């Protein structure tokens, strides 16, 4: 619950005036609704008494009030929806910026579990999107409207205020919120159940061959159904709670009306109010019904919101702090020039699960402009060495320097290190946006040169060139094209040290050749480290460093016999046949 309050607090720091204006307009809508009904009742009671000749009654003011309230209600409602939605959208945009910063600043350990985080993120954000529109605004408006009603009633008689407000607030606001908040454990269980359904159907699909051959396909399918059963069982409990909330909300209004009727009748009998005012008192109590009605759907929403807030609030807090920090220190990075040396001193990287270290005391010195291939079986630690040099993985022990300065964060000192990862990440936007990721001020000429060097001219030429737009995740390009675009992006950033992780893995031979040719050209004059198990990729290098079980086991330069021996052990189907 405190996390939810933190999220709500955050909402109000983003767009305080707009959100408040939304609540005020909601109260005005309720007030106009009350006014419409009360003025109508007042008119009828007054005219009835006047018709009997009991009192003199001015019909002009109540009928003008009816017209006014009828229009005011519509106008207030329309404005309220506009203002509240606009404010909410502003908050949603800001919330996403915070969450992004929060995740970006989270420790690597959290990021590695990010698949899980991402799978839930969108559902969590959706749940929080509704926090204002479905929780804060209706509860706030209900409280305010009821409070105002209570003040007016109290001016006539404190007993009246109590008779109406106690059932209204107790049954209509407190009970729904309390019951709904009690449902958060079920909300969590249901959420986990739906997670399980998702996960198990993925397991069923990915492992269908194994399940089928094992004769356990039926079992795998029924495990999905079993998770669905659990969800249905939790939902049955939630529905009972939902019913209680709905019933409380509905009864709140009815009890308040009876309270107003009975207390009002006494006031009338005592001569404290006139007949028309008595009718007004009774009809004003109808506001309770309308004010608490939106809270009746809270049972299912609130538990979900609390759960989501528990996960999002920490990210949001970190992200907001990061936002302040970056606003203070937006120093332009000094761009380094010339190739740089790399030095690893007894670097050890240990995972926190008790397994053997990924890197075990690796020391390696690479001179400026040298071209090195890290070779070895999969799982040997090649990619980890690249990640350490690039600053993506902090060493548990030891020291990493690039250009004589320690590597403390991603990209190395002043962004001197560029890494072409095995998995290529591209983003929505046009090609120019993609290329400028590392250097937003790069001139078009630099982009064009990088595109040419990466061999992308024949790809982008027939499309829109730099204006060619990529879809979500950079969709719209083939595997080889994506890789070359990522290479061009790296070249625009112009790093002194280029790290390549299996740059042609998963590409067909023709594409691989094209990528390798582009790489060979484009990395001239830079320090180059490539992790590979392919002979074609290792041929880029003048020095082979063999890695096994997190240690360096061999190191040879071109021309030495050991170099050829290492080269020979690498995979190359065509050469295997020739041998």
């Amino acid at each position: 619950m405190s996390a939810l309050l933190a999220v709500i607090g955050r909402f109000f720091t983003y767009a305080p005036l707009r959100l408040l204006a939304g609540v005020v307009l909601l109260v005005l809508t309720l007030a106009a609704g009350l006014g419409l009904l009360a003025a109508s009742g007042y008119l009828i009671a007054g005219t009835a008494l006047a018709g009997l000749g009991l009192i003199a009654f001015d019909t002009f003011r109540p009928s003008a009030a009816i017209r006014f309230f009828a229009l005011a209600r519509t106008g207030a409602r329309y404005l309220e929806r506009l203002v509240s939605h606009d404010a909410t959208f502003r908050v949603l945009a800001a919330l996403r910026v915070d969450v992004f910063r929060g995740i970006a600043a989270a420790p690597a350990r959290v990021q590695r579990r990010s698949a899980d985080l991402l799978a839930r993120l969108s559902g969590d954000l959706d749940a929080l999107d509704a926090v204002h529109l479905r929780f804060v605004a209706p509860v706030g408006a209900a409280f305010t409207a009821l409070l105002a009603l209570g003040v007016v009633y109290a001016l006539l008689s404190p007993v009246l205020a109590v008779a109406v407000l106690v059932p209204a607030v107790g049954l209509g606001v407190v009970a729904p919120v309390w019951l709904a908040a009690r449902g958060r454990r079920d909300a969590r269980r249901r959420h986990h159940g739906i997670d399980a359904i998702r996960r198990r159907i993925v397991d069923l699909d990915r492992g269908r061959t194994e399940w089928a051959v094992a004769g356990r396909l039926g079992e795998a399918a029924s495990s999905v159904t079993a998770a669905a059963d659990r969800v249905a069982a939790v939902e049955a409990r939630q529905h009972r709670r939902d019913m209680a909330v709905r019933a409380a909300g509905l009864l709140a209004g009815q009890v308040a009306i009876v309270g107003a009727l009975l207390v009002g009748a006494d006031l009338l009998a005592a001569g404290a109010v006139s007949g028309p005012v008595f009718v007004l008192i009774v009809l004003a109590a109808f506001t309770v019904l309308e004010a608490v009605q939106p809270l009746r759907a809270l049972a299912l929403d609130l538990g979900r919101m609390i759960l989501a807030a528990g996960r999002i609030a920490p990210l949001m807090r970190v992200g907001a702090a990061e936002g302040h920090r970056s606003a203070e220190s937006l120093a332009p990075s000094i761009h380094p020039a010339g190739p740089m040396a790399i030095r690893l001193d007894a670097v050890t990287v240990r995972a926190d699960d008790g397994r053997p270290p990924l890197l075990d005391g690796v020391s390696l010195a690479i001179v400026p402009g040298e071209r090195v291939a890290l070779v070895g079986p999969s799982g040997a630690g090649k990619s980890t060495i690249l990640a350490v040099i690039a600053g993506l993985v902090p060493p548990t022990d030891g020291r990493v320097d690039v250009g004589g300065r320690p590597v403390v964060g991603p990209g190395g000192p002043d962004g001197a290190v560029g890494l072409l990862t095995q998995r290529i990440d591209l983003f929505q936007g046009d090609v120019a946006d993609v290329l400028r990721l590392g250097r937003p001020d790069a001139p078009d000429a630099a982009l064009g040169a990088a595109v040419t060097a990466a061999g992308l001219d024949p790809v982008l030429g027939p499309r829109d060139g730099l204006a060619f737009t990529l879809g979500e995740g950079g969709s719209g390009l083939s595997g080889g094209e994506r890789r070359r675009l990522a290479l061009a992006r790296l070249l625009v950033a112009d790093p002194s040290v280029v790290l390549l992780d299996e740059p042609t893995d998963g590409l067909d031979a023709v594409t691989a050749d094209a990528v390798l040719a582009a790489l060979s050209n484009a990395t001239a004059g830079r320090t180059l480290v490539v992790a590979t198990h392919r002979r074609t990729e290792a041929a880029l290098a003048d020095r082979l460093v063999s890695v096994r079980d997190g240690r360096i086991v061999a190191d040879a330069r071109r021309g030495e016999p050991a170099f050829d021996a290492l080269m020979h052990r690498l995979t190359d189907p065509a050469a295997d046949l020739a041998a």
Partner: protein
Amino acid sequence: MSRSSRKLPSAPRAACLLSAGASLIWIPQAFVLARAVADAVSGAAFGAADLLVPAALFLVLALVRTGLDTLSVRLAATHAAAEKHRIRATVAATVAAWSPVDATRPPVGEVATLVGDQVESLEPFIVRYGPARFRVSVVPIVIALVVAWYAWAAALVLVLAFPFIPLLTSLIGMEARDRSKAQLAEVGTFTGVLLDKLAGLSTIRLFGAVDRTAEAIGTAGDGIRRRTMGVLALAFLSSAVIEVFSAIGVGLVAIFIGFSLLGWIDFGVTGAPLDLASGLFVLLLAPDFFQPLRDFSAAYHDKAAAEALMDRHDALIAPARPRLLRADPAPAAPPVVLTHAAPAAPTVTVHGLTVTAPGGAVMVADVSFEVSPGETVALWGPSGAGKSTVLAALAGLVAPSAGTITVGDDTLSPTTADAIRRRVAWIGQTPLTLSASLARNLTLAEPADRGPADPCALERAIADAGLGAFVARLPRGLATPIGEAGAGLSGGELRRLAVARALVADRPLVLADEPTADLDADTADAVRAGLLKAAAGRTLIVATHDPLLARQMDRVIRLAAPSAPPPPADPAAPQPAADPAPRAAAGRPVATEPAKGPA
């Protein structure tokens, strides 16, 4: 849209009736209340003490109304939960029957989103939309009739203020469409923008672009907000129209009653002239004449969401796809009795095997071969020749459209498929891993309720698969937990895990699909060695591009691509030079020749 709307599950009739009943109880409540108020005003009742009976009656009716309303919601919600469960179960059963060779089957992420999240949109549709739609067709008519009983002119005002329902619903429909258009605005959603960037977060960090990207997310969000608001400003107008009609309706009724009570108007009254009680009664009914329409308008977009769900369901789940051979489409686990006296290595005979996808594409055309007991055989051929499909057909993982497959004494058919599969060990490229211990992952082929596996057999399998050194370095050995999707295992280790799993399963026929593709030389060596160990005393059939592996088999069976046009290039395809037996004629449909022995 109309096609799928017929198939939408609807709210139970009883829930609709109860919900309309709950709304209509307001009529006697309003009557009691109006009478009580009128009595107090006219002096017929004096103080609260005289109003206790109507107050109690009003409260009893309120309780009944609350009861009916919650019961209605309960019925609808229970029905919705059952519908969601039904869809989840049938999707699971359907997905379980899809063949693994079908490359056109939808991405599992989409199926997971469908059964996990999108199915949820059925609930508001059933619980809110259905009853609201029923109420809007009943409650206003009844209230109008009751009002007309007292004052036909007031009823006329209401009916005129309530423009024809078709007109309003089309207005509401426009709002719903506009809203969904707003949500699907071309640049996507607030969350979509965020997820796009988060998916490549490490790249953004590498390029030092975290701050700039955060700014870009904010800017994109601002653009989405402005465009969405532009549409919503229009969309909200149509519900404002309903509000205006409803407010004007109530106001006009009140003024009519007032003037008629004053005697300024002497028409429009049906029976006796209006008095305070009947006037108040009519006034109290007026807002509830419009309430169902407002509820319906609020629930209208539930229908669009439910339709989107059903369309998605139909697109993903309904199309005919290649299916597994199964005797029983119901997802029930057959009682598997595993005798661990391993049966002898079987003969495998394939005769005239043809596999056709439901769209008509030929995946395998007229393939015939025979494999003797204990023989090791490589299926060799260009990408698209159907190596993997033949292998899958052998395990009954796809139904042949023609031809026969015999394993041992059994001819493959839906009824024998399970028995045949129980004699098969499968080694795939990306083995399934469960988040469970390594030991549990190795014994995946055993039913979950079988006791712990023989540790010696596991150790032996691990050593034979070349995983010995890897397991020795694990902190808890075989008990070490393995993450989902093989977290903590490299690609090579996963592949060796698959080999070890086949060794543990100890089945007489081993089928391996590209077991050495994309591996480094050392790991590929270990996998080849493990495969040969697995082949001892068993029949082994392996689909491969790896010339070294093919040479280690007793025999190579060459498959040619089934028909022109040539299949699209496979990125992993070896070049023609990689043929292990260049001497052989590349004849269609099949040529076999020995691969082993002196060259």
